[in-house]
C-alpha cells in the first residue's frame, strides 16, 4: 500500500513541485492551497505525513500542527516556512513537529525527512 502525504501551501508552485517529486518516490500525494479543506480531508482519509506551510491566511501552520497532533496523533507533521524564524521553529518543535524547514527547501532533504518519519512510524 502506498504511503499518503498531504501538502498544504498557499502557493500553488510549492504543492505542484512537492507533488511531482514525492510521487516519484512512490507516495500518494494530495495538495491543498489552504488549511480548511485540508483538515476536512483528514477527517475522510488517513495520511501518514502532513507537510504544511507555517504562515497562511485563515488557519495557519501551527494550528494545523495542533489539530493533527490532537486528532490524528499517528500522523507526522513537517513544517515549512518562507521565513527562517527561530521563534517559529521553537514554537513548532514544542508542538511536536517532526521537522522544520525554511524555504527554499531542498527537495532531497524533505524526502529524507519523510523517509525518516515513515521509518519511525513503522518501528512504532
Amino acid at each position, binding site marked *: 500500500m502506498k504511503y499518503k502525504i498531504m501538502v498544504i501551501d498557499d502557493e500553488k*508552485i510549492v504543492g505542484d513541485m512537492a507533488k511531482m517529486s514525492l510521487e516519484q518516490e512512490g507516495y500518494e500525494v494530495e495538495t491543498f492551497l489552504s488549511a480548511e479543506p485540508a483538515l476536512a480531508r483528514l477527517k475522510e482519509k488517513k495520511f501518514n505525513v502532513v507537510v504544511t506551510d507555517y504562515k497562511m491566511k485563515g488557519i495557519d501552520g501551527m494550528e494545523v500542527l495542533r489539530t493533527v497532533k490532537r486528532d490524528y496523533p499517528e500522523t507526522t507533521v513537517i513544517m515549512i516556512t518562507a521565513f527562517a524564524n527561530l521563534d517559529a521553529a521553537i514554537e513548532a518543535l514544542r508542538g511536536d513537529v517532526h521537522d522544520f524547514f525554511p*524555504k*527554499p*527547501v531542498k527537495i*532531497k532533504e524533505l524526502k529524507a525527512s519523510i523517509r525518516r518519519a515513515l521509518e519511525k512510524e513503522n518501528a512504532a
Partner: protein
Amino acid sequence: MLKNSSIKKAIDTVSGMFNRRKTAVTPEQFRALFDRFKKVLDSNNSALEVITDMGEKLGGDYLFDIVYVGKAYADLKREMECSLQQFGELTGNRYPRLPEVFKQIDSLVLNVLSEQPALPGPFVLFFDDISEGSIQAAGGKIAQLAEVKNHLGLEVPAGFVITTAAFEEFVELNRLESLLSRIKEGSFGESDLEELQELILHGTVPPGVSGEIVRAVERLRKNSGSSVIAVRSSAGEEDGDRSFAGQFRTVLGVPLRPESVERAYRKVIASLFSAKATAYQRQTGHPVGSMKMAVGCMAMVDAVSSGVIYTSTPDGDAQTMMISAAWGLGEAIVEAGANADLYRVAKDREPRVITNSIGRKESRIVLSAEDGTIEQPVPAELRDRACLSGEQIAVLAEQAMRIERYFGSPRDIEWAVDKQGRARILQARPLAVRTREQPAKPAQTLTPGGNAGHPELFRGGEMVQPGIGAGKVFLAGKPGDSLKMPKGSVLVAPHDSSLFVRSMPLVSAIITERGSQTSHMAALCRELGIPTIVNMPDAMQLLKHGQEVTVIASDEGVVLYSGIDRSLLAGAGQNGQQMEALYEFRKKRYILRYLSPLHLIDPLMDEFLPERCRSMHDILRFMHEKSVGELVEQARTGSAGYRRKTVVPLDLPVPAGMLVMDMGGGLLNQPLKGKAVLGDVASVPFKAILRGMLHPGAWREDPVPLNAGDFLSSMMRLPDIRSMTESTAGYNLAVISRDYVNMSIRFGYHFNMLDCYCSEKAKNNHIYFRFAGGATDLTKRSRRLDLISRILSSYGFTVKIKGDLLIARLAGFAREEMEHVLDRTGRLIAFARQLDAVLASERDVILFAERFLKDQYELASNSHSIPR
C-alpha cells in the same frame, strides 16, 4: 566576499607610496578612483552571487515560493543599483544608456514577479519595432524571429504581428470571456471548444484592431512590394521555451488585403482551441483558456527550396546540425509525406557536410496564381537533384550557428531560398533535444533473441525519441483513426502526423513506416518523451492489430519483442516526470532569463554596447570590462611620471596581453622603456599566479588537434597589446600591490576574475575566483564548469556554479599554502583556455580533472584515444 580590511590595506599602501614619491596625481585622487573601482567590483560580485543562488534555488532541486524569488531579486537589485551608481561616478556617466537598460530589464522582471499582465500595447507591431520587452505582445515565435532580424541582421521576410492585446480586444468585443473562463476552470467538453472556435471564426475584428490592420497592410505592401503573405500563429506562451511545433494554424498564400488578412487572422486564433492544440496545452501544463495568441503576417517568400534546420541533432549531438530541404514551400517537410534531402553538417568554423542523402522528391508545394498554394509534380529533371548547393548549405549553416549562439540553446529553424538565391529565415523556435548524459536504456536490455518469455519480433527503424513502451498494437491507416485508439496502445501508422498529438496522452509508443526526424510529430514526441520510431519498413504489415508488443528504442537501435514485458517497463522510469512540465515552475523560473544568461561576449568582436545588454549578467559584465578600462585610461592620461609607474604592459613568455597597475610594492624596479618583465614582479600573489600560468605544459600554444570547433580560433586569438593602446576595450589587467592582486583576464570567450590578498597573516588572506563563459553549447559549458569546479574544490575552494557562472572562494590559508593554491589556479586559468575544444563526454571531465591534479596537462581531443 572580499574583506574590507584587505582592500583598505591595499589602498593605504598605495597612498603611502604616492606620499613618498610625490607624483603629479594626488594620492587622494587615486585613492578615490581605486575605491570606486573596488566598490563596483564588490557590488558586482555580490550581485553575481545572488544570481547564482537564484539559479540554484530555481533549478528544480528546491521547493521555493514567490516570497523567496521576490526577496532574492530585491537583494540583486540593491547591489546592482549600488554598482551602477559607483560605475557612473567612475566613468563620469559616460554610458547613460546603461541605467536605462537596467530599468527596462528590471521592469520585465517585476512584470513576471507581480504576475501583472503588461499594459495593453499597440494592436499591431512591425517586426522592426519588436524588442526584448515585446515577447508577451508579439508571442514567442514572432518575437524570436524579430530578434533574428533586429539583433543578428539576418534576412527575414518583412512583416508585422497582430499582438496579444488585439486578441484580448477580440475576446472582449465578441463576449467570449464567460465561455473562456468556464474552459479555464477545466469543466468543458469538445462541444465547448467547437462552439468557441465557431464564435471566433464568425467573430468581429474590433474596429481599433481592424484600423491598424488596414494601415499595416498598406505599409507592408509599400515596403515589401509583395502581394501575398503567410499568416502564422505566435502564441503568447509565458516562457518561450516550448516549441508548440505544428499546433496552430498557419495560412499560406493570403492576399495582402485587409479582409483576407482578417479572415486568416480569425482562422489562426481559432486554432488555439482546436482539439489538437488544447491537448498539447494540457500536456505541457498550460491551462487551456489562459493562453493568448498573437498572429504574424509576413511577406511570402516565393521559395525555390525550403526546409528545416536543427542546430543540434535531436539525440543531443551539439557538434552536428541537420538540414532538411525540399523543392518549393516548406510545408512538405514539416508535415508528413515528402521525401526530402537530408544533410548532416559538422559545426566547424567552416561548416562541413558529413553525410547527405538526396530524397526522391515527387511533388512540391508552390504559390498559386489565385489564393493560396497548390501542390504540383516536381519536373522529372529535378526529382533526384539536391535542392541545395554547397555554397547555400554553408550560408544556411553559418546563419543557423549564429542564431543558436544568440539564443544560447538549440533551435528549430525554418528557412527558404528565393528565386534570387537568397536565404531567408522564417522561424527560429526552441528545439527539444535529449542530453547525451542520459542513455535511453542500459545495453543489456537489448538481448538478442529476446528476453525471458518475450521472443524478439524484429529490429529496424529510426529512433526519434528513446524509451520503452508496451501495449496492444493499434493500426491507424489514417491519422484520424488514432482518435479511436484505446489507452496504452502502441500506435502504428504509415506516416508521421502532428494530429497524433491528441492521442499522445494515451499512447505507449509510436511507430511509423515513413517519417522524418524533423517533422512536427517528431518534435512533439521528443518534447513529451514518447518512445517514437519512424521509417520502420512494413510496420503496418508486420504488426497485427491488437497484438501485444514491447518496443525498446535506444542508441543501440530499435527492437520489438512479442508480448508485454513488465520487468522492462518497471525499469524504464517515468517519462516527463520532470519539474519542467510544471507550468507554475516554468512561469516562476522565467525570471532567470532576464538575470543569468551571458550574451555580451567579446568586447573586441561584438558591439560591446549598453543597449546590447539583455540580462543583468550582461550589465555586470559590461560594467566590469569598462571599469577595468577606465582605471587603465585614467592612469594613462595622467602625468607622464605617474603613467610610467602605474600602468605598464607586462612582458611574458606567453601572449597573455597583460597590463599591470602597481599600487605600491607590486613591482620591484622602475620598469624600463615603459615595460615590465617577469623578474620585476614583486607582488606575492601575482607572482604565484604567473608562475602557475607559465608552468611548462599548462599553457599550450599549439592548437588542440581534432574537433577544434567554431570557437577555438577566437580563443587562441589573444588581444594584441599594441593595437589596444587607443582603445579601452578588452584589457587583461592586474591591479597589484605587494600583498594583493585583482586580475581580470579574458581569453576568447572565457572571463577570469581573481581577487586575492596574500599576507603573513593567514586570517586576512582570501582568494575570490570567478569564471564565466558563454558561446559554446550548453553541454560543453556545463562540463567546462564541472571540470574547473572539481579541480578548485580539491584545493580547498568552496565552489558555486549556476548557468554560465562559477564562483570559488577560499580564505584563511597561510601564505605558503596560498602561494601553492595560486600557482595551481594560475595553471588552471591557462589550462582552461583550450577546454572547449575537448570535453566530448562526462568521462573526459573526470579524466582531465584527475590528470590535472597529478600535474599532467596534455589534452587528447578524444576520450577513446586516452589510455585508461
